[in-house]
């Protein structure tokens, strides 16, 4: 069975590279991007199964990236990392988000969420 491929997007580079390393320990192939533009380039070049993205980023915001990804890859599951639980600091929530992940994120909870959404998608496709 192919390994799950995940892209983590946050302008805090140390955060996403460390999370990626920890996901690798859990048999998930994880890549990271520190800007919206880098994320879009990587999504267009690689077959990811799941994207995990922060909303607040310099330049192209997470919301803009989510809208673009959803337009180009409507079936690609997206999780939103948020700094303060469910508060988005007044930002509009882009549609198509599977779930919110308040920081600090527990890695095993993240793995469960990733596996859960992919399992559900496989089941839906079979039906």
């Amino acid at each position, binding site marked *: 069975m192919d390994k799950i491929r995940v892209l983590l997007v946050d*302008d*805090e580079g*140390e*955060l996403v590279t*460390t*999370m990626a*390393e*920890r996901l690798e*320990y859990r048999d998930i192939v994880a890549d990271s991007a520190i800007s919206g533009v880098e994320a879009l380039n990587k999504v267009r070049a690689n077959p990811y199964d799941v994207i995990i993205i922060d909303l*607040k*980023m*310099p*330049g192209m*915001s997470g919301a803009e990236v989510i809208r673009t990804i959803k337009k180009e890859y409507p079936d690609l599951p997206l999780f939103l990392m948020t*700094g*303060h639980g469910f508060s988005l*600091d007044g930002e509009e929530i882009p549609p198509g988000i599977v779930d919110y992940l308040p*920081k*600090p*994120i527990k*890695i095993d909870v993240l793995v469960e969420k990733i596996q859960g959404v992919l399992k559900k998608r496989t089941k839906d496709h079979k039906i």
Partner: protein
Amino acid sequence: MSDKEICDNSLKFFGAVTASVSHELNNVISIIDQTGGLLDDLLYSADTGKPVPQEKLRSIVDKIAVQTDRGVRIIKRMNYFAHSVDEAVKQVNIVQLTDNFARLMQRLASQKKIEIVASFSADSIQINTNPFLLELLLYYLIKSSFISYNTERKLRLEINQSSSKVIILVEKLPDAEAPEISIIEELAGRAKCSFDITLKDMIVYYRLKF
């Protein structure tokens, strides 16, 4: 601007700074949390017979130290800012206040691809002012330039001292809307300075004169 309006706007400003600082601190804690988690993963891996390279452990310790220092700096900046409401008017080191303010604002500016570049003609310049209202005034001036740009921009903030005057210059970025002048003049009066707009090297600056 009435006292009530000043009070309402002060509260909004304080809220904006607190939200930004808490967001940044949460990122610091998240990085430390993930780095500690990575150490746990490595120890678990070592238990199963896979040795942990010494340099990997060193890099983890260094990463935690860097983030701890970053957290301490953020807390110190917030603490300095919080104490600016302690007294209505007092003698302050305007360089320290403006430098602290610029660093606090940087996260908000970064969201708009703006880098605040502060420069000072001396390390310490003492003035009499209402420190919190001066920060609120600087916030209004800087915030008016916080519009989204496609490319990265620098926003200059300068303090110059001549024999009799201290001048703070805040750059107005191109395409930025000017803040409401009546509000700025009112705040400048309460912060014990005068306000005007000037042109320097073809750049528009807001000028506060003490």
